[in-house]
């Protein structure tokens, strides 16, 4: 569900801008954040609850290094356009799928599957491939040069794109 950036006030934006990383790991983290932001612990918690409810924030907490946390794999499959929605639903039902996108290419469905270890991952992929009935392109990461999705949010530019 789209969110109008104008519904996020200065405090919401500062929460996001200051704490996409370096959330304090202490007994009362939200009180520590409130101190820095000049507000109360209860207000920080209320703001975070609202950002979660709006879907702007998916969770508050650690991001694990996927290469060390378990096994994961980027996969792609080429399916007829008429079957794309149905195939995407099958992919979403498979255990461990955390990203699933349609992209403009002959390989038109792209997803990431995660699992506790390589053996579970391989058997999940084999099962999904059999259910889909189309071969999967399996593209494991061989080397990572950069992985950081905590990008600065371009608030001014976002406001400029919203209809009044």
């Amino acid at each position, binding site marked *: 569900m789209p969110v109008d950036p104008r519904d996020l006030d200065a405090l919401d934006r500062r929460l996001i801008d200051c704490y996409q990383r370096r959330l304090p790991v202490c007994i009362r983290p939200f009180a520590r954040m409130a101190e820095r932001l000049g507000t109360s612990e209860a207000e920080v918690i209320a703001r975070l609850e609202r950002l979660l409810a709006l879907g702007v924030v*998916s969770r508050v907490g650690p991001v694990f290094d996927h290469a060390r946390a378990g096994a994961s794999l980027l996969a792609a499959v080429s399916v007829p356009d008429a079957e794309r929605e149905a195939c995407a639903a099958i992919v979403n039902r498979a255990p461990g799928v955390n990203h699933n996108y349609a992209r403009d290419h002959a390989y038109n469905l792209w997803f990431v599957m995660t699992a506790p270890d390589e053996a579970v991952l391989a058997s999940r992929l084999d099962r999904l491939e059999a259910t889909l009935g189309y071969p999967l392109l399996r593209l494991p990461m061989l080397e990572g040069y950069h992985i950081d999705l905590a990008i600065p949010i371009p608030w001014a530019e976002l406001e400029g794109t919203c209809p009044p």
Partner: protein
Amino acid sequence: MPTVTAVIQAPDGASVSSEAQRRLRERLEQGLPLSPRPWRVLAEQCGLTEGEVLACVHRWQANGLIKRQGLVVRHRPLGIRANAMVVWDVPDARVAEAGRRLAREVAVTLCYRRPRCLPDWPYNLFCMLHGIRRERVLAELAAIVERQGLADLEHRVLFSERAYRQCGGRYAGEPSP
């Protein structure tokens, strides 16, 4: 790569079993409870003390299992919807250098080397760019290619047309026997 399952020594001297660590990671992957003492809530759910939970988390930060902690923003609802996967066909001898060059760019959020799958898939280097509009993302890509001297490398841009799912990884389930 092996998963991290070493027994952790908590400050009070007790050790945290790998099963308790797995339970804690499973909870943490879903985010912190929004309570004034979130670690205590997690500790109660996992049968640990608050001190043991904090010791585990500090250790995971120090050894790199946890990359960052904070608000995990979903870009799409905010309007950052032009999500481009750029795939490159780079001679093997040059791929690491090209990857490091792309990684220098602020706009590049992810950059990986992956295997080719010939004949259908000749690309061995992947990066992601995010933006509000496709034209802006393509202009940024053109600037990156110019700045980093990558004009001779064949590449393709795969924009996302639809997101069916976007959430954090779930790794800490039951491992295989």
